[in-house]
């Protein structure tokens, strides 16, 4: 998986995390960035787990059922409904880079903090890249037996985006049994441990999706991420 994952990792995105705009990067700093990226990839233990379940959307309500129609969960998010409008199934996905990279970052903070913050940025970007990789893997018939029929996917959407409550993290964790299968825990304030983990939902349908919402699924006026670099004026 790591070899394929590397191709999803954007060095530009790592630089953005490190607050780079258009500064000239000295040769030694570039070498350090490359070295730390390689070390991060060496250290991570990427894993993921997913489940596809039927859904019925009636904004803002989303009913998640078993294949036999038994209601399992009910979510409430008009934003999620908007982004996934038309979905007949949701994929619930949990992805993680494991604990070792977090431990390494913590150790580096003591001896080599520059490397630590670079590794932290690399790991954050790779966690997103892992999500991109999994999203592409959903086109693999081995993973998605109905890809011939349900071959359109929505944007991916995570708990905490827009008006999808952060506590949905717990629901996904229970559904995928992430504690046991991935070693990913959800704190009582719905943060994921290890930190370089992501849960997301992605809708799948027979017709293309036409959401007007952006990748994070929220318009800026309603979003609480004040310092988001994508925020529009």
């Amino acid at each position, binding site marked *: 998986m790591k070899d394929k994952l590397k191709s999803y990792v954007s060095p530009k995105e790592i630089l953005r995390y490190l607050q780079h705009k258009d500064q000239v990067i000295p040769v030694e700093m570039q070498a350090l960035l490359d070295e730390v990226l390689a070390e991060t990839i060496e250290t991570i233990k990427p894993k993921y787990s997913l489940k596809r379940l039927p859904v019925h959307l009636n904004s803002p309500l989303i009913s998640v059922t078993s294949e036999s129609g038994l209601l399992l969960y009910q979510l409430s998010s008009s934003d999620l409904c908007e982004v996934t409008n038309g979905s007949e199934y949701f994929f619930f996905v949990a992805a993680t880079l494991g604990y070792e990279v977090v431990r390494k970052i913590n150790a580096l903070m003591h001896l080599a903090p520059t490397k630590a*913050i670079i590794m932290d940025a690399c790991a954050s970007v790779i966690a997103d890249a892992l999500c991109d990789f999994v999203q592409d893997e959903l086109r693999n018939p081995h993973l998605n037996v109905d890809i011939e029929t349900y071959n359109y996917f929505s944007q991916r959407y995570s708990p905490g985006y827009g008006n999808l409550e952060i506590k949905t993290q717990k629901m996904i964790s229970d559904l995928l049994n992430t504690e046991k299968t991935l070693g990913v825990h959800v704190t009582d304030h719905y943060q994921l441990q290890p930190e370089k983990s992501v849960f997301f939902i992605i809708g799948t349908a027979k017709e293309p999706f036409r959401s007007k919402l952006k990748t994070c699924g929220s318009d800026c006026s309603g979003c609480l991420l004040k310092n988001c670099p994508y925020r529009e004026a």
Partner: protein
Amino acid sequence: MTKNEFEKWLHEQPRLMDGAMGSALFEKGLPLGVYPESYNLIQPQWIKEIHKAHLNSGSEIITANTFGANPLKFDNYVEIVKAAVDIAHQAIEEYREESDATREIYVALDLGPLGTLLSPLGTLSFDEAYEAYKKVVHAGVKAGCDLILLETFTDLYEAKCGVLAAVENSELPVICTMSFESTGRTFFGADIESMATTLEGLGISALGFNCSFGSREMLPLVEKLVKVTAKPIFLQPNAGMPQIIQSIAVYDTDFDEYYENALRFLASGVSAIGGCCGTTGEHIIKLKEAIKYYMDHSENADFISKYSAEISWRKAYLPKTRVASFSETVTIGDVPVIIGERLNPTGKKRLREALKNEEYDYLLREGLLQIEQGAAILDVNVGVPGIDEPLVMKEVIKGLQAIINAPLQIDSSNTDAIEAGARYYNGKPLINSVSGKLSVLEAILPIVKKYGACVIGLTLDDEGIPSSADGRFEIAQKIVKTAVAYGIPKENIIIDCLALTASAQQAEVFETLKTIERVKKELGVCTALGVSNVSFGLPAREVINQTFLTMALYAGLDAPIINPAHEPMKAAIAAYEVLSNKDQGSERYINRFNLQQLESKNIQNELSAEVKLTTKEHTSSEKLSQAIQSGRKVATKDLTRELLSRMEPLAIVDEIIIPSLNTVGKKYEEGILFLPQLIQSAESVQGAFELLKDEISKQGKAPIDRGKIVLATVHHDIHDIGKNILKVVLENYGYKIYDLGKDVPPAKIVDACTKNGIKLVGLSALMTTTVASMTETIKQLKAVDGDIITVVGGAVLSAETALEIGADYYAKDASEMIKIAESVLEG
């Protein structure tokens, strides 16, 4: 049932555990997201039916449905545990009535992970976790269970915590099994050897594996485990690898393979087998058949021939002297093992200061450096007058094990500090030390036994250190005999034959070597030695140390306690390994010296690059400023050292370092530099500050103190990278930082401020849900002292939000925080 009775029962023949409870309940209709343990009260009949299915298949141990029944998940855990154990007993009773079966059947209290991670991975403290387990154990004992099974652990620290709670709060047999990935490590990085090394000495009756995968995938792990422990082994693999069919995990077991794998487990010496997820009565029947076949055929030549590999695994076990962290086991006695000695305040003023001032980061850095320099084990001694040694030992051990994989040696003459270190240590520690003094043996050996530790015994007693080898050997003999009488296995005892100074006791140098030789040959235990004592008071100490080290290695020294930064000493060890044929083909030796040449070349290149940055015309002050602005650690430290010969330390700080950092800060604000360059500059002065602090300390002057700041990520928030960036920058501006970590309750922040007279607090939060914790913290701080200034930062905050929640300032980045700190603390 007592532990002895249980262990005797295990030795009679392999035993049959039960199958899955959780997956069986899902089959019956347990809804997703509902705790299975709640069904002890909601649908007790289902639980009983599952137990009876296993009993009908032949199970001899059934696990009560209490896996998640702990106080963190259930307020009514006592009721649930009682119900679970009652149902199990009822199932047995009904089974006996219906079947006339008379075999012994035991009910195990089943303890799984608490569901909340222990610090440092999570936020639950060891003591909080211990209390939770202790309560469940009490409930289980009261309810009448026969033994305690801790299972499905992936965090060795939590497993140790649970085991201690079980062993210390009941007399029942305790078994602990962990869940591994096919890589041979758990999600949290624990490896098989470290698991066995750590757990086997804690008073458990058996250990092993459960869950994760089926028996086929478990076989290679069993091979590793059987070779590293003599403890009885319990296995409960899943029914196989699940296929997800219509979103449900479906296990499709090949029962022929399942049976065959069971025989392989039994041939390797496994004491009990059962099943985890997906296993049913059908699986237990197959296991029962396998046990019967094994009992009938294990002595036959055909069986022995067919399973010779598995039988050889068992025979490969040898008791060895081992210490372990959660992820790394070090075997002492095969090749020389360096114990790093630098975390010992004796003769180290800077370390003493760091301990007195709670600058634990200094110790962590020293620890990390020693590992980089080649130490396999770290000695940890925090004995400084005027501090709470047990508390400091606990904090330092916890700090080190959060970032260092190497095992630790707990070094103290304070019994409480030794106990604190051993208890909170995530692994099997080495305890330094006992001696031949009876009072010391009586105080410390029980701790060694309780935590399954290794112990170093010093060859001295109430009369002092005997001058003769015979006298020292007698003490060594006494230590070994006494330790064994306490139940400490011989392989856990290491003898330090004590190096005396050649300048004062020259004739006795060889007595140390003779003692080492006798201890190795006649007592059969490993040896350690603080080598550098021998050269105290003599010139060219390195020459004496190297020579003595080599002689001691030849005499049988296994674990030299040295400064791993000393290349000549490491070179002596490397050479000895070649000459003694331990480094076959001299591979390590050759690699070592090739690597040294490469490092030397890299340093030369770095220095050349640095020379290019400045010209001869630049003064040292200018060069230092340049080095800081370019983030050059080595040059910054070297130039600082040079400037100290003609400038006062505080002048270097005020006239060069701070202005240079300010220049970098300005360039960062203006977007000329980006974040790693800012941090690199801050990092570059770390070494310089250590030199300056040393010099100030030598001069007896007051330390650099621009002011004190508390930093914390607020309660319920676990993100700390922003706070950590601030800390690096602020520390290297000369501020004393009290870093309280993450998920810090308001009261702890208030306490730190009041205790240390701190007037400036930096609070970080990444989540909107934790801004409320920030608000509460600010409220509590202001209530205690209205003069405390609060600065907040984090992705979800802004200058407006900061005011709304009552903060005094908002800092969007480290540069802004520096300005605020300067303004608040220095006017």
